């Protein structure tokens, strides 16, 4: 009889590692680095699409339903797609304010918090710019946050998570130095963006965004704004247009044609481009993109 029980329990213990649902690929990568073999990550959004607009496919409900924890970016980046999934999955472990729910934005000091929040100013994020993971220093803070989160859920493997975090910290810190050296020559450069999703990256390396192709956050380009932008580019001579991978580059190409300013595609997450398949290659690419 005892053998029978052992046989029953054995497969359960083999599967006992935690399944952690995460909203974006970059969160999955950090979580995997810290959690190692003790966790499985389930990434909900795709890295090559607009993080603001994710189709709440029912298959994501199935993924959330069985998750042991949920880690999200927060700062309202997921406001348009995650709430109905949380609601439908009805998983107590993925409910906001559950012990196993982590909102990363609460652990980062957000920049560009608007003084006035009003939709006449476009689709503003009231808590500040939510694209904080594109500053390499912030990745360390997020990794530390996730380490503490994993320990709080699974204290049994505390040492493993601490060890993995320590290793990640050493490796990442080295990279930060490399990237800093690589980017030093670009300090002070003026750039144009489509949407200000490189705010933290630009902050980290002293790049200055002087204008965006969208007239207001979330509002598609207008001809009036484009003409004004061309005028601004001619006056201020920015070095390039840093463009995300998910908006059409049509307007950027038009501006580039008129002004001679080149367009550089900037991936925002793992999987945005073929060559950015992990966290390190994402930042390698970003820091090497400006010539």
């Amino acid at each position: 009889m005892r053998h029978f029980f052992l046989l029953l329990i054995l497969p359960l213990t083999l599967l006992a590692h935690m399944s952690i649902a995460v909203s974006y690929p970059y969160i999955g990568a950090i979580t995997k680095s810290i959690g190692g073999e003790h966790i499985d990550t389930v990434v909900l959004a795709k890295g090559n699409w607009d993080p603001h607009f994710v189709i709440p496919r029912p298959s994501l409900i199935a993924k959330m339903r069985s998750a042991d924890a949920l880690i999200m970016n927060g700062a309202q980046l997921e406001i348009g797609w995650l709430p109905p999934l949380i609601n439908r999955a009805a998983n107590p472990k993925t409910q906001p304010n559950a012990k196993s729910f982590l909102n990363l934005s609460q652990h980062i000091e957000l920049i560009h918090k608007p003084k006035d929040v009003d939709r006449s100013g476009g689709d503003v994020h009231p808590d500040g710019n939510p694209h904080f993971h594109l500053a390499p220093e912030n990745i360390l803070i997020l990794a530390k946050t996730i380490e503490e989160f994993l320990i709080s859920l699974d204290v049994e493997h505390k040492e493993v998570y601490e060890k993995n975090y320590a290793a990640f910290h050493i490796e990442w810190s080295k990279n930060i130095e490399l990237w800093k050296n690589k980017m030093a020559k670009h300090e002070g450069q003026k750039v144009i963006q489509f949407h200000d999703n490189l705010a933290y990256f630009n902050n980290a390396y002293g790049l200055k965004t002087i204008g965006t192709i969208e007239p207001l956050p979330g509002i598609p380009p207008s001809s009036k704004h484009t003409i004004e932008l061309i005028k601004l580019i001619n006056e201020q001579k920015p070095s390039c247009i840093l463009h995300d991978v998910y908006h059409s580059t049509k307007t950027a190409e038009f501006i580039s044609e008129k002004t001679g300013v080149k367009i550089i595609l900037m991936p925002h997450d793992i999987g945005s481009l073929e060559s950015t398949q992990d966290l390190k290659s994402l930042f390698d690419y970003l820091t090497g993109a400006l010539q």
Partner: protein
Amino acid sequence: MKKILLATALCATLIHAADVLPVEKRTFDQSKYIPDISLVMDASYVSRSVSDDEVVHLEVPGVAHGLIGSHEHGGETHATYNADNGFNLNYAELVLSSSVDPFFTMDGVFHFSPNGVHVEELFFTSTALGNGLRAKGGKFNSNFGYLNEQHHHAWDFADMPLVYEAFLGMHGLNEVGAQIQWTAPTPFYLMAGVEVLQGENEQMFGNNTIHLSELNASNADVTYEKAPSMFVGYVKTSFDIEDTTVLAGLSYIQGSSRIDHTEDEEEPHAFSGDSKLYGADLVIKHAFDSYSSLKWQNELLYRDMDGIQYGINTATGFAGSIDITKKQAGLYSQLIYAIDRNYKVGVRYDSIFKNDIEKSAGEAAFAPHDLDKYSVMAEYSTSEFARFRLQYDRNNAMFNEEGNRQSIDTIILQANISIGAHGAHSF
């Protein structure tokens, strides 16, 4: 003068007090607990080839009457959306939602229209059951089929598909009751749900006594059916193939019917019996990128109503009765192309293709089988919060009292605007 001075002084003190005490420092401030609030308005300009007076008398023979326009029923005015030629203020919808405690959330949807205020939805939903279980109680849109649970402002056309409106009325399956859904622990989406509902749908279900004896003392009343009298079950599944999502579902309802049209001016009648409604839905959505997609949405409804029909003699109030069975089916199929974040275009085909009515006596029912409707639409959204839609449809399903088909051409220019909390829709 003294009063004015006093009032001014009071105001000044109040304003000053407000300066001194910012919201977050008020001792018993509860503003952080304000639920998410949003307000949705829907208004339209309508141009219809048939006059408002005529359109209310048109019917889908053997299926439904009074579908378009506004009509009186039970002392209340009912109006479909876009009821009149010219401008229509269809509704303002006030939505409030918040978590209640660690175990429930609550949602309220209040529907304000020129005909009054209705509680469209008011329900609590469990969040703590786990194991894929979710329970809901209150008044809500049934999760039968695909479209039924969605609110009007989430639809891709300004009006309901013909078969839905004809079988279930303009509110669809909107009932008081309880729902339990279970999501299976499978790698793909698999959900099963059951609902027990009060059962008071105006077109198909009901459980109240029909007081035929009030019309003529020799009539016997149609007895009531004990409520709740409507039972719903469904299974839904979904999977992805690359960037294409397939969602399919099968739904079933069974319930008692007590349809009281004894006060109608034209051909007053009543129906009592049992009804079954079967639904199959299939939605396939392919996403080209973050903003562009193609969505093919289909639903098939089949109903089987079996009971007694009472015809009321308008002069004497005497109710004659016959056995009647109705086996009717219809479908809609629509294709929506989202070009980018601002533009969408779509086509829809509606059909009621089965309309079999058997009577135990009297002349055969007039029940044509070729009832259809064609719609096209184009919409422009300035943002997620404001949408303008131009729709044209040709409806070949409506007949006048003489049994002649009256094709209706309708142009609808619709404005749907919302403010407040960001609404996130399910798939």
